[in-house]
Structures are given as C-alpha cells and as structure tokens.
C-alpha cells in the first residue's frame, strides 16, 4: 500500500508544513511526486536506521511531524531501542511506517519478512500500532495520527495495493463487511489479511453460508471492548494473522475471551497464526501464507463446521 501512503502523505503535506518524509534509502519511485512538490521536505538518510529514527525524534522535538519509512524488520528490529527511547519514551508525535510487513516481500527472503513487528511494537508503551486493511484505510490512519492524538504511531503496510471489493464498515479499530455481521461464524484477521479473507469468502459456493469477516486494524491500544462484543455475537470465531502467535492477534483475542466474555457466551475459538520459523523457501506471499499454516481449505472447513480445528 505504498502508493496509497504516498498519496495520503502528499495530501496532508499540502496543508501542513510540519510534515517531513524521511526514508531509509528505499521506496524507489514511490514518493517521486512528494519529492517533486516538496523537495526540502523529503530526506533520504541512507541505510542507517538508528540514526534515521533518532534524527526524526530530534525533528519532532522541535515541532515537526516526521514520517519515517523503511522496511518493517529494519525499522522495528534494528532500531528498536531508538523507537523505544527516542520516540515512545519522549512521546514524539511522529509516524513510523514499516513497509512489507508480514511475508509481503515473498521471494526476497526471510531477512525481509516481518512476522514479529506488530508484537514488538505493541510491547512499547505509548506507541500506537495499526495495520490498515486496504489502500483506502491508509489515509484514515494518517489522519488519525495527525489529528486525533499526540502519540507516535507504528503502521505496518504491505507492498501491493490490494483491491477490496466490498463496502467496509468502519468501527474505528475494526473493519468488516456489513451484510455478514449476523452470521453464526466469524473470521477475524489482522488488518493486512482482509483481502485474503475476502478471497476466502468469495470462494464459497452459493449454498454455503459465509462467515462474517472482520479485520483488526488497531493493534495498540487493543480494542478489547469491541472484540468482547464481537466474540459474544458469534458461535465460532477463527482468528487468522500474518504474524507469529506469540504476542499476536490470537493471543490478545484469547485474553479478552477469558477475561471479558461471560463463560456461557464464549464462542468456539480457533487460531491460525504463521508457524514460528524463518521462511527460506522461494515463494510468493500467498504461497508463504499457506506454507505458514494459513491454508484456505483448512480454515474454511473449520468456519463451516465441517471439522473442528
């Protein structure tokens, strides 16, 4: 969703001179228009993520609204202490964008995959974390970051511009497809899996009742109340995430289930997280999702009650 990000930033930058875009020597062609219109507000600080984040913190300290953009594992992994100390500890009003989250870098190999970024970012106090589910949602989160808080935010986006064909109902933290909200079963996914989930549902035959589909976009603060409501509204909930299980979406949903849902209202709960390993196989993102355990047939079987998980 790089293109959507670039467009959203450009739109806001036209009316807010505080916005500066800082990239870690990536994003070829992505921000050309931004650079053309605002040459002095685009900086490529090179392959030096710790310096980049510290630098952005210094800019934010002096009143600017910097956006830092690089590949997700290099941002959250390599510069973790800078994110923790320079950004979150100082409550800097800046945006950290990790592109290629999950396995969206596919065949470029495991050093570029990021199945732990959302969990790592969620561990840092005072850092908001989001995972927009579609291109149109990127600008929504940009606006929320700029207008509705003074907190730093980490945003995970994929590389592509997925097409989401159905109308999305915005709950704030969670988006879904409206006509399926009262289904008995639900598929709850991490934000970036919405298109994948949509594909899953569209593969059903006409006589099969589709599940409700929800994509959790706001990871931190976690929408506990809404998740608790959602769990009580369905008999069977499958959680799928483009992330490892540890500290991931399912672990948080399960925690809500156990602590905030009356026992007699608990749904059957199933988890499909990515197998915790490095993905050395040369495969595109959709194949890697399957290799990691997010297999459509298996998940549909569980959703439709053909078998238990």
């Amino acid at each position, binding site marked *: 969703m790089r293109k959507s990000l670039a467009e959203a930033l450009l739109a806001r930058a036209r009316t807010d001179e505080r916005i500066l875009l800082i990239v870690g020597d990536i994003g070829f062609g992505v921000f050309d228009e931004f650079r053309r219109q605002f040459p002095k507000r685009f900086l490529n600080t090179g392959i030096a993520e*710790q*310096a980049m984040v*510290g*630098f952005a*913190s*210094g800019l934010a300290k002096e009143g*600017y609204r910097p956006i830092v953009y690089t590949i997700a594992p290099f941002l959250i992994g390599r510069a973790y*202490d800078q994110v923790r100390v320079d950004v979150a500890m*100082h409550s800097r009003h800046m945006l950290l964008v990790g592109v290629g989250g999950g396995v969206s870098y596919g065949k470029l190999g495991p050093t570029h995959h990021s199945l732990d970024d959302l969990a790592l970012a969620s561990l840092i106090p005072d850092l908001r974390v989001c995972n927009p589910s579609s291109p149109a949602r990127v600008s929504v989160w940009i606006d929320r970051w700029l207008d509705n808080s003074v907190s730093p935010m980490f945003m995970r986006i994929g590389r592509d511009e997925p097409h989401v064909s159905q109308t999305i109902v915005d709950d704030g933290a969670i988006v879904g497809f409206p006509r399926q909200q009262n289904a008995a079963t639900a598929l709850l996914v991490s934000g970036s899996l919405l298109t994948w989930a949509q594909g899953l549902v569209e593969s059903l035959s006409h006589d099969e009742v589709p599940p409700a589909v929800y994509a959790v976009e706001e990871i931190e603060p976690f929408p506990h109340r809404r998740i608790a409501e959602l769990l009580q509204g369905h008999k069977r909930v499958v959680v799928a995430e483009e992330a490892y299980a540890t500290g991931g979406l399912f672990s948080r949903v399960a925690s809500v289930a156990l602590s905030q849902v009356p026992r007699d209202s608990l749904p059957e709960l199933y988890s499909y997280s990515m197998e915790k390993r490095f993905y050395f196989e040369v495969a595109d993102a959709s194949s890697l999702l399957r290799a990691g355990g997010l297999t459509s047939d298996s998940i549909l079987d569980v959703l439709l009650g053909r078998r238990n998980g």
Partner: protein
Amino acid sequence: MTELDGQEATQIATALRRRILETAHNGGGGHIGGSLSVLEILIALYGSVMKYRRNEPDWEYRDRLIFSKGHSVLALYACLERWGMLRPSELNEYLVDGSRLPGHSEHVHIPHIEVTTGSLGHGLGIAVGAAFALQLRGIDAHTFVIVGDGECNEGSNWESCMLANQLQLRNLTVIVDNNGMESLDKTENILSVEPLTDKFRSFGFAVDVVDGHNLGELVERLPPSQDQEQPRAVIAKTIKGKGVSFAEGVPMWHFRQPTSRELAEALTELDADAQISG
C-alpha cells in the same frame, strides 16, 4: 550567561565536585568517574557559552544541550542547581523515592533537561535532528551534544555523524568527554575509538582538541565560530574521576557510593587543592 573568570571558575568547579561526591554518598551511589570528568565542560557551557533562560526552559532561541552520556547526570544536576534550574538543595533528593532526580537524566522531571538518556548512542542522532530542524526554521541557536568516548563504541553515533556531515550542520557541536575509560577498563583495552580526531575529521567534521579541565580554554574554544561551515567536534581531554586522586583512572569509580571515609578523604583533597590554587 555569565563570563567565568579564572578564580571564580576554579572555585565553582571545586564546589560542584564536592556536591557530586556528597550527593553520590547520600543518595546511594552514582556514576562518579564520568561526572567528575565532564564537569568543566558543563560549567563552561552553563556559565558562559550557551544562551538560555533559566525561567524559560522552552525559549525558542535557546541553545540546545543534548546530554547523551546520561549516566554522568550528577554533574548535570550540580550545574543545574548552581545556575538556578533546580530548586536550592534539590540535589539532596537525588535517588529518593518520589523525587525528580533519578540516576540517569530524564526530560520528564526537569524542564531544562532536553532528552532522556542512559542508553548510550542516542543523543547524537537526536541532536542532528534538532540542529537540522533549527536550520530549517532559520532559528539562530546552536545544538551541543556531549558524548562519552566509550559511548563512541556505539555505531549509531557514526551513522549520525555521516548524516550531520551530509546535511552540513554548521549549528552542531559534538563534545567528546575523552577520559579514555569505559566501565571496566581503559577504552584502548576494550574497543579503542582512537584516533578520535582523525575519525571525526574523516566524517567531515571540523575538530578541536582542548584540555577538558581548563575552564579558560573551554570558555574560549567551545563557542561556535560565525564562519563554521560544517559540524564540529571538540575532543575534550579529561580524566575520569578528576579531582580525587584515588579515583582518577580507577575503574571501580565508574559507579560507586563513596564510603564516609572515602568522602572525607576526597573532600579534604578538594579543599587542599582549592587552597593551593586560590
């Protein structure tokens, strides 16, 4: 900002050394060695070089001081108290539960402290960002960042130096408290950073080397020159534990709570030195 003349400056240094030692003793410990080595640098900055307003910590045109070697905070506290930016005698509350004075510098409690440090290798990056922001906005203010020489082990510093050079930050001065030591041993025996002068020059910095305990020299050489065209590094040659003979260059004084006897001996030495130089 006041000028420091020779005798007054020496008396101030002696008094603040006493303050550092007493505070570490009463508070339960502190990074004494590095606090004693960086002290004159801070005295020069607060007493003469920097422009700031003690009652207006967010004054837009103030010079910024990023104290990256946050473990030497006792020296910073002592100077803030001396120049009216801590309540009188607030140092007595150092490390006391609920006080404003923890063992590393924190921006949350003390308005005049610009950033929270303690994890090394962070301040320079933030300083580069702050200096660039001031340059963008056309604000005539200088950014000073104090780093330790052991801290220069951290690669993040050198990334930031490259960036400072790339951005041609003429409003940035990096001051290295070059006391030659880290926590466990001399820097040269652990991960040598020398030759620092050559390193900073090769990163595009103008470099000055000064006696880090000579206040006259610091007051004269720390101010940026009007025709500075590039970022600047000032390598301040210092002694870890300076002023206390049995602490100078001794690793265990990196962090220590002086015993009552050690404190008494140290204060006696300081008084004697003050009489000699007075």
